[in-house]
């Protein structure tokens, strides 16, 4: 590219629309995330279970393969809601790992060198900034969760005899909705915690801790007090219950330990509200010192 040295003048040409500036944040966020080899490695790791599941679906629907694997007996693997619950759970927990690595990369670089005053001095709002980072994270986590899950579902629908798809459409919906809910929770959690922790590796650890430490405390509360309400601190248990209900899979927990849907919804809403409050407090061009 030729570079012209000239007297600097105001720009009079075409400008992009304001909503497109969020797209700029998304593009640079994605580039930042994928510039790391570890991101590529984690993504590859997250695809391994999908390949195994793909082979399982193929075997389950191929008559010759069924005979070869278990001649004269019932094929050991049934492709149903329970199978897809296991697929969704595996992908969502891998998505948490990807999120714990990527979310700090999206935010910490901006905060480490105090870039927010410059970023927000451009025609982009605080909401736009967070939305841009959220969409970047959403895109990456989608590639690990609902996209492969729905591709597997589509392949099963294609391979299985026709009534299967009609009878299991709710599973496809459950895979999509369950993934979206999980992405929303972990992406908000990742961005909120990354905005408060300046060091990326520490932020990664804090994201894991935010999920599993309360779960441990909840298990202790449940064990000591012999109450199911301690499970409300246990995100893995709550999410498994939600996914199971969305997919219409068989009950995982004992009946007396089952949590009411309303209680789970309220806890998750409270957690997401807290994350939004953390972001609102931290994503500012200027901090105001009280007193």
């Amino acid at each position, binding site marked *: 590219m030729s570079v012209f040295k000239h007297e*600097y003048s105001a*720009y009079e040409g075409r400008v*992009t629309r304001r909503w497109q500036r969020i797209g*700029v944040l998304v593009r640079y966020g994605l580039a930042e995330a994928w510039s790391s080899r570890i991101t590529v490695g984690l993504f590859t790791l997250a695809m391994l279970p999908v390949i195994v599941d793909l082979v399982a679906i193929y075997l389950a629907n191929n008559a010759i393969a069924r005979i070869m694997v278990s001649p004269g007996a019932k094929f050991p693997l049934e492709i149903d809601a329970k199978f897809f619950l296991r697929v969704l759970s595996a992908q969502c927990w891998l998505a948490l790992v990807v999120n714990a690595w990527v979310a700090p990369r999206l935010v910490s670089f901006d905060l480490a060198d105090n870039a927010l005053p*410059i970023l927000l*001095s*451009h*025609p982009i709002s605080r909401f736009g900034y967070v939305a841009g980072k959220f969409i970047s994270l959403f895109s990456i986590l989608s590639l690990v969760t609902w996209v492969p899950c729905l591709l597997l579902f589509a392949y099963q629908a294609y391979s299985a005899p026709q009534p299967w798809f009609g009878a299991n459409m709710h599973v496809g919906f459950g895979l999509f909705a369950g993934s979206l809910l999980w992405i929303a929770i972990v992406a908000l959690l990742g961005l909120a915690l990354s905005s408060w922790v300046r060091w990326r590796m520490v932020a990664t650890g804090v994201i894991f801790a935010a999920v599993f430490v309360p779960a441990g405390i909840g298990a202790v509360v449940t064990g000591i007090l012999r109450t199911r309400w301690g499970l409300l601190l246990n995100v893995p248990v709550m999410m498994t219950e939600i996914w199971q209900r969305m997919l219409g899979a068989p009950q995982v927990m004992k009946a007396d330990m089952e949590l009411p849907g309303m209680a789970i919804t309220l806890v998750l809403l409270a957690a997401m509200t807290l994350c939004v409050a953390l972001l609102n407090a931290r994503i500012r061009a200027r901090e105001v010192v009280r007193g």
Partner: protein
Amino acid sequence: MGVIELQGLEVRLGGRTVLNGLTGELRGSAIGLLGPNGAGKSTLINTLLGFHNPSAGVARVFGMDSRHQRAQIRERIGYMPENDSFIGNMSGVRFVRYMAELAGLPSGVALERAHEALFFVGLGEVRYRKISTYSLGMKQLIKLAQAMAHGPRLLILDEPTNGLDPMARQRMIQTLRDIRAAGSIGLLISSHLLHDIEEICDEVMILKQGRLAAICNIEEERRSHRNFIEVETVGQIDAFCAALRDRGCECACFSAGRVKLVMPDTIEVRDLYVAADQHGVEIRRIHRRRDSLEDIFLRAMDLEPARGELVRI
């Protein structure tokens, strides 16, 4: 239409009134914002950018309200903050391009102007290096490059020469003078270094304790050819100064018996000797000199403006 208009602007932060009833209009092509530390210079800039909402009054940039039209204002402004503010992990050209795209430039144009801006500020040779490896002076320049890459109508620079060695400082001042000379971009420079402001700006706004102490057009002052007289005296000068003020002189007293005054046409130097004799003051030395920004600033600091009142210089 002025570049910046303030009408009773009041900003309260953390329970404190930081800006108190600022009223004034600035029309210069290079405006200096002066004041001691804590006077409210950075808060005023942050308010113009829409980072802080006024608790009362209005601040306008190019006629646009900073509270309701912040996006439109930001499209027309380039901002260089006082402290380090960059993405250290990015190369210089990528960072400047990113900022230009956020300002609304299409991707290709942003890349082209990023290269040009970096060459303009003198970072052309290091534009592919990560910013975290830059020296302090380079970091100041990359902030300037990102502020001007999208071709704003007004550059807001908060302490642009902070932390620079003399050569880098001179280079920054020369760059800003070049921008001013080009004429299509206005400058608003906040600094407590009077010399920097005097070299670059044609108009100054002086803040003191959150209030507007003075607005002064340096160019007009320079053009007015008013001769100022500096007198070195021995003795009690308070009564002497009061007598000169009664006769229509503008008078500022300093330590060690130094008095700076502006004489109206009706007063002669001889009258100074008469007044000195009457008040028991010995005049040891008189010399005529033109008013400097330092004098304007010191007088503004001497005077105590009331809320919303503008002190005439």
